């Protein structure tokens, strides 16, 4: 690999938790190989480069940009567009950039309600002047600017065209290395593809599976599951059946149900709808009232359970999004 001419790599962090940045470092000593293969031209979390440095770069001069995080603010939108313009290959890195992830769950509510909660209503908030973020604030020293907080979180590809997707919250180190290798060796799937497996977590799960009939759903704190049989069959809402493989079934391995962070399998457009369609076929009752009861008791938060990672990308979206986001 080292014989190849050195490429230019950029990494960026938008609306996300920062876990993806750490995930890049989780490739451990291989980060040195990355450094040997690429000049890292922009990576705010690790190296000192400014936005104006990027602005000055010629278009398409960055070979690969790994972009994590969704688009929640005007600044993030600007950076997404800028990096798209400057990069040959733009990778939606991790669940937030690919499908919105946890920040995308806020799409179930509004900017107003988010601000109410964040700046006023939590018990630990002390904000007697009811201060909220303003895009412009006049101070004695001059006007201060903050990015506009949009009404809706959008995925990266709802903002700019994306070449590849790397799923996971965060992506596993080995899959990151696989992706880097694929990029370096130009061994990539057709543009628009997810770089990853084309099967589900069940494929990597060692548990015994049977035909599924569920009489009652349990939340994780309610039971200690049997370690050998399928968690879903035990009534735990394991999303492994619908979730793309790639993690090595980490959660089921430690007796915890898959929460779906690797997103839907190839070609599936709406993860939550898939899960719901599958589960509704497993509930072991023909009595509508009993079915309602099973769902009410066992799945108190359907959006959080089925769209934890994909609300921003799924088919369930706001009918209209205002011009200011």
């Amino acid at each position, binding site marked *: 690999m080292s014989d190849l001419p050195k490429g230019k790599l950029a990494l960026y962090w938008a609306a996300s938790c920062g876990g993806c940045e750490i995930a890049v470092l989780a490739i451990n000593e291989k980060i040195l190989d990355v450094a040997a293969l690429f000049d890292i031209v922009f990576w705010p979390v690790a190296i000192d480069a400014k936005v104006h440095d990027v602005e000055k770069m010629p278009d398409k001069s960055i070979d690969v940009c790994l972009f994590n995080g969704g688009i929640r603010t005007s600044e993030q939108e600007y950076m997404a567009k800028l990096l798209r313009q400057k990069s040959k290959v733009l990778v939606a890195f991790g669940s937030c950039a690919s499908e919105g992830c946890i920040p995308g769950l806020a799409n179930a509510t509004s900017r107003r309600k988010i601000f109410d909660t964040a700046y006023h209503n939590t018990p630990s908030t002390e904000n007697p002047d009811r201060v909220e973020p303003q895009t412009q604030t006049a101070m004695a020293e001059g006007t201060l600017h903050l990015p506009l907080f949009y009404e809706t979180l959008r995925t990266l590809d709802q903002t700019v065209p994306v070449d590849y997707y790397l799923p996971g919250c965060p992506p596993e180190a080995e899959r990151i290395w696989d992706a880097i290798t694929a990029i370096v060796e130009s061994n990539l799937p057709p543009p628009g593809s997810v770089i990853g497996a084309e*099967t*589900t977590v069940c494929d990597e799960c060692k548990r015994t599976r049977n*035909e599924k009939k569920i009489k009652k759903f349990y939340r994780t704190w309610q039971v200690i599951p049997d370690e050998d049989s399928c968690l879903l069959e035990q009534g735990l809402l394991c999303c492994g*059946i*619908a979730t793309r*493989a790639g993690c090595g079934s980490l959660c089921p391995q430690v007796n915890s149900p898959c929460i779906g962070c690797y997103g839907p399998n190839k070609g599936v457009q709406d993860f939550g709808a898939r899960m719901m369609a599958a589960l509704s076929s497993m509930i072991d009752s023909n009595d509508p009232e009993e079915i309602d009861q099973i769902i009410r008791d066992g799945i108190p938060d359907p959006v959080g359970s089925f769209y934890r990672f994909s609300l921003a990308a799924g088919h369930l979206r706001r009918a209209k999004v205002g011009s200011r986001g």
Partner: protein
Amino acid sequence: MIDHESLRIGVYVCHCGSNIAGALDVEELTRFAEGLPGVALSRHYKYMCSDPGQELVKRDIVEHRLNRIVVAACSPNLHEPTFRRAAEDAGLNRFLVQMCNIREQVAWVTEDKADALTKAEAHLAGAVRRVAGHEPLQRQFVRIVPRALVVGGGIAGIQAALTLADAGHKVVLVEREPSIGGHMAMFDKTFPTLDCAACILTPKMTSVKLHPNIKLLTYSTVESVEGSVGNYRVKIRRKPRYIDEDLCVGCMQCIDGCVFTQAKFSNAFDQGLGLRKPVYLPFPQAVPPVPVVDPEVCLQIARGKCKQSCVEACGERNAFKFDQQEEIEEYNVGAIIVATGFKAFDPSVIEYYGYGKYPNVYTSLEVERLLNAGGPTGGKLVLRDGSTPKRVGIVHCVGSRDANYHPYCSRVCCMYALKLAHLVREKTGAEVTNCYIDIRTPGKGFEEFYNRVQNEGVQFIRGKVADITPAAGNGDSPHLPERPSGCLAQMGTVPFSGGLVMQVDDTLLGSIRKVEVDMVILAVALEAQADAGDVRRTFGISCSTEGFFLEKHPKLAPVNTANDGVMVAGACQGAKDIPDTVAQADAAAAKAMVLIDSGQIELEPNTAWVDEEMCSGCKTCISLCPYQAITPDEERKIAVIDQALCKGCGTCVAACPSGAAKQHLFGDEQVNEELEGLMNYV
């Protein structure tokens, strides 16, 4: 992925005479189609389904190198095969054709011409965008299982089974009673020829038993039917006889040997008029000639305590198996003939006829048994006190042609009532009075038979019997004693036997008449079997309002049903007499042979399939398939769909959490494109 560059879609708008052209502007619709993505040419024509219409499509495919076809015309049920064939003739894969139904779904249901055009445009845009995503598919055929299942061992089932078997086809015949024969085996004579029923039926019953091509399963019911036309998997529940059919030689010594020296249990075959032992043969000519043990009254089975003199009588043959259990047997069949027959109407619900209340009111079926030489009285017509009736009244239309019970005419009652009148007169010399609404004799030799019976001195009163009451002087104790459960009062056990009066409004005389008789015979209706609804569900067919099984078309497909591989024959399809039943059974057998002899059947193209790479074998789909077409491959950890069994319902496709189950012609892309095409114009 759709390759938009290479798309060359031909759109054809059909006028359907004035059906479509009268309801919307077909020329405007054709112009609209020209502007849709991928459309290379667009035409309209008076009758697309006509030869010139089809030729147009064929010529264009060749001359204009069209690679997709949309025909905006009628329902795909009508002409999809027509245009698929036309496309194939011109060298285009037949599945690259999409029908756009602008007749039933637009022209016929939209009043305003402008609205109709807008609607048709939306449909057409959907169809054009959909067909762009179609992929060429191979036609698939599957072998038909060369075996038929016949359900019901009455004359219909017997006839159908023999016809099929004589033509060299394997048949499984299932009968729920211990013997085949059905209602016909209960009759003494048949109208209008007065053939002895047993003489013409029992040879057929024996042939069934002996036929190398027929597997006879009596005392058995069909538990479930899976699969589809040409390939059904049938589960048959076999009730225990407690006697091994293979070991029993039919010597009947066990019946003689039974610890019960007297028969004391009601024999259902004799309508409760005769008695049997715990081990019994329903009637002497029963096929198979193997006795049955009634587990409710057999001391050994019910109480586990008996000296088992029957087993002793059986001796070395060793046929008794008191530990026999219910068993399920499985058979694969290609075609099914349902011939489950009818049930005789229970007249006790018509209180004013006094059935069940006055001992000398009988149903026609009871009288059939009394008249039958093999019946409980050896063919002697006697009243419950053993005396011979001197005056007999026959009431027609009991439960038939009556808005309170069955509005339909049961078709056979007039003729069997005439037959009973003849037999009663012949055997007893009694005076017989028929009370009828109309005499219906529209069959070969029927009217002649009616004349004959009239000439024999049988009386006819045109009028509906309004009431049956005890005759004067007989009012002291006209009632039956408490009826033993499961059967009517038994012969010779009722002390009272009094005369009865039939009150009838004689519409020819215009006066009320009271006719005193010793015996009343109620000519009861034929109705659907009590469990016809369950049977209907088991075989995936329909019932008409009166409960009989519904044929596919009342005139042109009288033995076919909505389920392609299931035929109906006999009285389960509607009341009918023996000749009609036999003819229909032969017709059903012929239809079954048409299916089986065709050897193979084309599968629906829209079957589901599993992308093996994407499937992780989570087993969500396995139990969902209504056709049992999906099996798990444990080694490869995937689900496998049997293309021959899949009917393309799409259940697994919808439920598959990994998106591995996909469906031909209903891929996400095809469906989404069609929806988007539609929605853009709504």
